[in-house]
């Protein structure tokens, strides 16, 4: 067995706020091997790699580089030691060209000599990108290649990739995998591949370390394991404990017996017609989308993130300009301000809950009436808030949505992510909306909270609400939706029912094949 390139021993990380992210983790990276690091959100994957790449110091424990203990004080130290990381949210300067971004990483000026060496590197690795276009105008897959080139230009021996496929289409993913295989075989680089996707772990890695709640719960050779075993390790015993219908079961129900058939006859709650939404970087993010959303159904929008879902939702919810038509129960609402939409019965569970969902430094009570502060229930004479009513409302929300909060006067930032989301969901649903737009409603939540939110969505559906669910989690969309649309670069490639698609077809739709 080859000597490990890098060894992490008994790594403990306690954040300043007391959160224990890692509880004594051992980890090894060997040359010419792709090492999977598997775990759910919050399992400690990112924390571990941040320490290996010099972004965070460990609370205790040590790193051994080729058998010698090292301390990494900055990403620069790590790069000097031959450790490079490709971050999930690319560490690129948006208005710099690819060449300038790579120059930044190499510490060299963006001159002809650098250009020549990068061109040579692109030739050797087969990773081609336009060098003189600002990276903000490049596709995500290209940006990732810039990121990888940036790291490789530093002659790294350890390459860490944090969720590299979360933004890629299946085709791009395949290209990335081929490249990684070449890199490990031809250059003997040790690669750490972080993901929560089991299929990818099985496909690309040689060895897998599974993290759960800051501990290593398993380390296995990929060829000796199975998806089921890995899943069990990853989520632990509590997985699917509450008996919701799994996807497989739903697919066996004949299409005509599902809700869709029954609901189609009714009037749609929301009609979107030929909606165009401009993108921030110029061009169109949404290119003429039309659909109808009926009461009592969940219409899921699946797709790799960055294909226009965010812009679509923001246009419908009055947060972004768009052209075309959006009608709520027959009334044109495109361009109306969010407060007005709220009053008309459109609730929005925003994708970015810290930007649009909550004011983190405000109290739970204040957040519970955000957007409803002018309703007669809460607003008294002389523009004074009726705090008695507000507190009663908070109590209702906390009880009904089992929100764990230190108190109604505690700042929203003191709540866990799951409870913050419950607070938003509770607030948005408490007004009995007709239409609910839920964007990435379970992102970043622990399993318990995620399941809870999913149950609430199903409950609302059964209560006759029309729900638009946008999620990058394909399993979630297939599991909850009555109908599902696949979004790819601003258009729907298919609208169908979950029963009619298997994962492979879904992958094709998400990758741009028309249904």
């Amino acid at each position, binding site marked *: 067995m080859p000597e490990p390139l890098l060894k992490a021993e008994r790594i403990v990380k306690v954040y300043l706020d007391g959160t224990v992210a890692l509880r004594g983790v051992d980890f090894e990276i060997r040359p010419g091997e792709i090492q999977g690091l598997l775990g759910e959100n919050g399992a400690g994957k990112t924390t571990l790699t*941040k320490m290996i790449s010099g972004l965070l110091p460990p609370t205790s424990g040590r790193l051994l580089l080729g058998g010698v203990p090292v301390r990494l004080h*900055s990403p620069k130290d790590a790069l000097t030691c031959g450790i490079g990381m490709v971050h999930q949210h690319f*560490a690129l*300067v*948006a208005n710099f060209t690819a060449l*300038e971004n790579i120059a930044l990483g190499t510490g060299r*000026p963006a001159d002809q000599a650098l250009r020549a060496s990068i061109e040579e590197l692109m030739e050797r690795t087969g990773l081609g990108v336009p060098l003189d276009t600002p990276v903000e105008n490049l596709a995500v897959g290209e940006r990732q290649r810039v990121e990888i080139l*940036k790291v490789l230009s530093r002659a790294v021996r350890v390459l860490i990739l944090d969720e590299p496929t979360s933004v890629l289409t299946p085709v791009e993913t395949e290209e990335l995998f081929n490249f990684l295989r070449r890199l490990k075989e031809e250059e003997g680089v040790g690669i750490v591949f972080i993901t929560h996707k089991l299929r990818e772990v099985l496909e690309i890695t040689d060895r897998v370390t599974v993290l759960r709640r800051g501990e290593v719960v398993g380390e296995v050779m990929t060829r000796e394991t199975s998806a089921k075993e890995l899943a069990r390790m990853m989520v632990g015993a509590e997985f699917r404990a509450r008996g919701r219908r799994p996807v497989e079961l739903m697919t066996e129900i004949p299409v005509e017996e599902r809700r869709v058939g029954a609901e189609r006859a009714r009037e749609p709650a929301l009609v979107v017609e030929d909606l165009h939404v401009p993108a921030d970087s110029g061009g169109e993010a949404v290119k003429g989308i039309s659909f109808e959303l009926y009461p009592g159904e969940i219409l899921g929008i699946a797709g790799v993130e960055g294909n226009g879902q965010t812009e679509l939702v923001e246009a419908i919810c009055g947060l972004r300009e768009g052209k075309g038509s959006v009608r709520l129960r027959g009334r044109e609402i495109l361009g109306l301000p969010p407060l007005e939409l709220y009053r008309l019965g459109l609730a929005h569970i925003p994708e970015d809950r810290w930007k649009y969902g909550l004011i983190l430094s405000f109290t739970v009570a204040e957040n519970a009436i955000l957007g409803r502060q002018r309703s007669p229930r809460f607003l008294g004479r002389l523009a004074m808030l009726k705090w008695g009513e507000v507190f009663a409302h908070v109590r209702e929300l906390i009880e009904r949505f089992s929100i764990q909060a230190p108190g109604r006067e505690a700042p929203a930032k003191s709540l866990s992510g799951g409870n913050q989301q419950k607070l938003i969901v509770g607030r948005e649903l408490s007004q009995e909306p007709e239409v609910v737009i839920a964007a990435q409603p379970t992102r970043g939540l622990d399993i318990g909270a995620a399941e809870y939110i999913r149950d609430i969505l199903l409950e609302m559906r059964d209560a006759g609400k029309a729900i638009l669910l946008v999620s990058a989690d394909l399993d979630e969309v297939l599991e909850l939706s009555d109908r599902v649309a696949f979004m790819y670069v601003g258009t729907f490639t298919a609208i169908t029912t979950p029963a009619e698609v298997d994962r492979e077809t879904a992958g094709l739709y998400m990758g741009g094949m028309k249904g």
Partner: protein
Amino acid sequence: MTLDHFWSILFLSLHAMVPITLTAAGEVVGERAGLFNIGLEGILLLSAFTGALGAEAGGWPLGLLVGIGTGAVVGLFFGLINAYWKGNQLITGVGINLFALGFVAFGLRALGTPAFHDVPRDVRLPAIQTPVGGLSPIVFLALVMPFAIHWFLNRTRAGLWVRAVGENPEAADVAGVPVELVRLLATTFGAALAGLAGAYMSISWMGAVTKEMAAGRGFIALATVVFSGLRPILTLAGGFIFGFFDSLATWIANIPGVKEAIPWQFVSMIPYIVTLLVVTGVIGRVRFPKALGVPYRRE
């Protein structure tokens, strides 16, 4: 207006352009790195005062050095507080301005010249004699500096680092760029240029120190940065527009007839109003660095 008038207004404009352009070009570097220094006004005033003292102590070369040094020291403080200690840039800047007002008023009083402190002719920076009048050498520096800064920002590694820490400090950090240090140096450089501009005002252009002498030029320089869209070469245009109207206003105010009819304070508003209009005209179209004004914290 005769040809002579034209030349004299042009010369006056060039001289009035210098403090704006130097200060703005320096501030472009600081802002590209993500620090927004509204204390420039204070730096101009402080270094005009200290520069004059330096010149009186050791001639104009020392005066210029002391002016630059004053700017650099203030910039260093500003950079330490904001790049390293993650302070509030607006408050720090306001603090610099208030400190300068008090310090210079006190200093002038201590020197026994509370209203007007004359800088003796023999310690002033000698002007270059041309057929149409004397021209300060700093004018040439101000004409060249924006080009040098343009070259620095766009052609050198350090310039790349400056732009990166202002646009995306996380990315710069991950790439091994020392974010705080780059920001500190960038803002210190900018402040040092403002210091030079201040010393220029007292020991070259006006030949005097008064406590109102900055006259909002630090703020006009900030407006010029906006007008330029953070492109250093355009600070020449911004500086010249202000300088031209500044000189024109002085000229108009002194036309016989006008002098008696309109109070000069009224005419003096012209350059400020023009600047305001020009800046409002471009403000929506300027793309500022994404991390401008935002302290960088690793996690």
